[in-house]
């Protein structure tokens, strides 16, 4: 059923903007990204937004819809109250660029600091063997589409601006995918503690709630990493060994 909906879309550059009103015709099945495209085609050809696959697979069109971090391509208009204005704003955790676009380059710089995958030697026949039950848990982490909604909602980053000290949920997931990779032999525990700053997470699980891939970020990635750090650094027996070993 076609209807007119009042959209309030953030327009402006480098935080100096405001919400603009657009009354848009909505057809059945439309998602928020369709509405943004319709506004571009009719009212505002220069309305800036990122998008690619329009199928929830690339993680480009992240924004805050009615204040909730969402993928615009997977948010159906009929799941929102169409009788009230619908707001669409850029992610708040990253520096603003223009309209719905933010500067997410910090994420790429964090990723680059993570030590790459280092495989164990191959089997005698030149093959690598790992079993489905072993890879199930890393495959969960590797579903991440890097939409950065988890980074956006994380209060350590969003409210406290600890970008220098905490890598954020996305990179806890990435670190977990490497640390729990059956073939990987690299040691990233010191990194996870000192540079990744896993201790900053106080397990409010906001990241898990917004993950469009339904990755159990807190339970399956962050808590096990916290445990590994605790085992290494705070286990009394291990500490004794370290003292005796002069480390």
């Amino acid at each position: 059923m076609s209807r007119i909906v009042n959209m309030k879309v953030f327009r402006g550059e480098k935080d100096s903007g405001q919400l603009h009103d657009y009354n848009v015709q909505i057809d059945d099945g439309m998602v928020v990204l369709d509405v943004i495209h319709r506004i571009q085609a009719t009212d505002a050809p220069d309305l800036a937004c990122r998008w690619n696959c329009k199928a929830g697979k690339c993680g480009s069109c992240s924004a805050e819809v009615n204040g909730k971090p969402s993928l615009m391509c997977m948010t159906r208009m009929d799941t929102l109250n169409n009788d009230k204005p619908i707001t669409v704003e850029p992610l708040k955790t990253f520096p603003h660029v223009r309209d719905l676009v933010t500067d997410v380059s910090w994420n790429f710089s964090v990723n680059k600091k993570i030590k790459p995958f280092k495989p164990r030697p191959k089997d005698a026949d030149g093959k690598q063997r790992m079993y489905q039950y072993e890879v199930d848990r890393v495959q969960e982490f590797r579903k991440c589409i890097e939409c950065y909604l988890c980074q956006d909602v994380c209060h350590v980053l969003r409210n406290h601006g600890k970008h220098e000290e905490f890598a954020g949920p996305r990179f806890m997931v990435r670190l977990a995918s490497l640390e729990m990779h059956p073939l990987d032999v690299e040691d990233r525990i010191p990194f996870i503690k000192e540079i990744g700053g896993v201790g900053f997470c106080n397990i409010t699980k906001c990241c898990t709630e917004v993950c469009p891939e339904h990755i159990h970020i807190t339970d399956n990635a962050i808590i096990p990493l916290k445990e590994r750090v605790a085992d290494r650094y705070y286990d009394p027996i291990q500490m004794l060994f370290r003292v005796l070993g002069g480390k």
Partner: protein
Amino acid sequence: MAQYTTHDFDVLVVGAGGAGLRAAIESADLGAKTAVVMKSLLGKAHTVMAEGGAAAALRNADDRDSWQTHFRDTMKGGKQLNYYRMAELHAKEAPDRIQELEDWGAVFDRTPDGLINQRNFGGHTYPRLAHVGDRTGLEMIRTLQDKVVHMNAEIFMEVTITHLFKSNGKACGALAYSRVTGEFHLFRAKAIVLATGGGGKSFAITSNSWEYSGDGQALAWRAGAELLDMEFVQFHPTGMVWPLSVRGTLVTEGVRGEGGVLLNKDGRRFMFDYIPDAFKNDVAATEEEANQWVAEVASGKLATVRRPPELLTRDVVARSIRAEVQAGRGSPHGGAFLDIATRRTADDIKRKLPSMYHQFKQLANVDITKEAMEVGPTCHYMMGGIKVEAETAMTTLPGLFAAGEVAAGLHGANRLGGNSLSDLLVFGRRAGWGAAEYAKKASAGQPAQAEVDQAITENIACFDLKDGENPYTVHKELQDMMQDNVGIVRTDEELRGALKALDTFEARVNKLTVSGARAYNPGWNLAMDLRSMVVVSRAIAMAALERRESRGGHSRIDFPDYDKSFSKINHILTNDNGKMVLRADPLPAVPDELKKFVEEA
């Protein structure tokens, strides 16, 4: 004089999908100073949307497979129009390229023996596709992305190339703009690799994103490189058809690989009615045989009977769905029903096809474990593209290389599902190697100042023109025109009409008006992309008009059958002082040692 920043590299890679990233890794590994520029952010390229898998005769799931069988399947699927040498290299090297991804951290689904598992797909004789559920492309791009950031390659995100430059008849540089700032950049490079993907954005119903405007094909043609087989456009049989806003979004062939069946509105499994003679011996003759195949495969056994007709090649399935709809037997929204719910358990479906489950649930309110999907053809892939030399991936313009969807030759008239991801790896690597080796011997050329200035002037003219058209309007009309006249089936009259319309579109895209400033202005970006779309559209229409037969991804209502006189001909498009000219080249002859693997179509 126009303002821009200049960068110097040995190798400039344009595009950061599977082919571009694999090329950059190889080039940087060989010590070439390498840059990768991409229209979007790193990791967002089209490769991320690939679902089903990467084809390689690893022989993990069925040891009857071999590179020879993969070669044969690829040639047969391509209706023998493939450049045989590319098909040969691809079949031989794909297993190593997949294994290499695992060495770089990729986590494919496993066989019970702990090796990379492989699934069945249309046109592949044996289970051959290495996969990760239905998100194989994501696994591949993330693996390559995490590899490339630790290599000596500089990454330029949200940077689009608009012009290529030559000096002394060789590629020597490119003009780009940054999406974020709107500023211009001049890249000077000894070798340039185009890995820009396809051009489906010229069609109204497509699985392609805004990036797929055919930039690489247009850049290459303008610079004087030859295009090959542009008439062959793949319409994937299964795109979503409802709701309208997601029309065209891909539904993986993996659904059929896992046993999904196609039904018309009467519940008839119509693919049995459309089996081409050339495939009669490969496909189940009865529903019982087809069902037995699914039962065997689902339980992890080797198939002892022939596969269901739903796994015929994509061109055949797409045309069959269209024929059912034309005959009035389509689904309510003009497609066919794709049913996996009655074939596999809900658990199997969620495990094997998680993103399809998610996609239909969220976008169409359909639970695919309980109901059938509605699907129809969607413009998906271009078999045609830039002509390249198989070993090095060099185009006919010295110093310019191309790999992946933007290049042509491997897939002939129709691409098999799964052969794209492996194509990206095999020829991405070869292009990176070819470009790095070429750059070692080449000296840096200097783009002519006047040409650079002229390119910038062309790019910003739309800001000064006051009464031009809105780029979004022109784009919509171009898409509708191409869909109606150069789509899944074509006629002489429609194609001539399209070429005439394209003359008008060519004039229109040079008279666009853009508002706002240059920084992150999608209207302006679209205005520039449209120039590529018009070139690619013309190339498709021109080659399609000349091929007076139906073969693979090219179907003519007025010439519905194969024509022997076209079976040994490739169409080449060249640039004669700005005018597109077509010629027919004889197909490279398959040498005797490979002939025995190839069957006549």
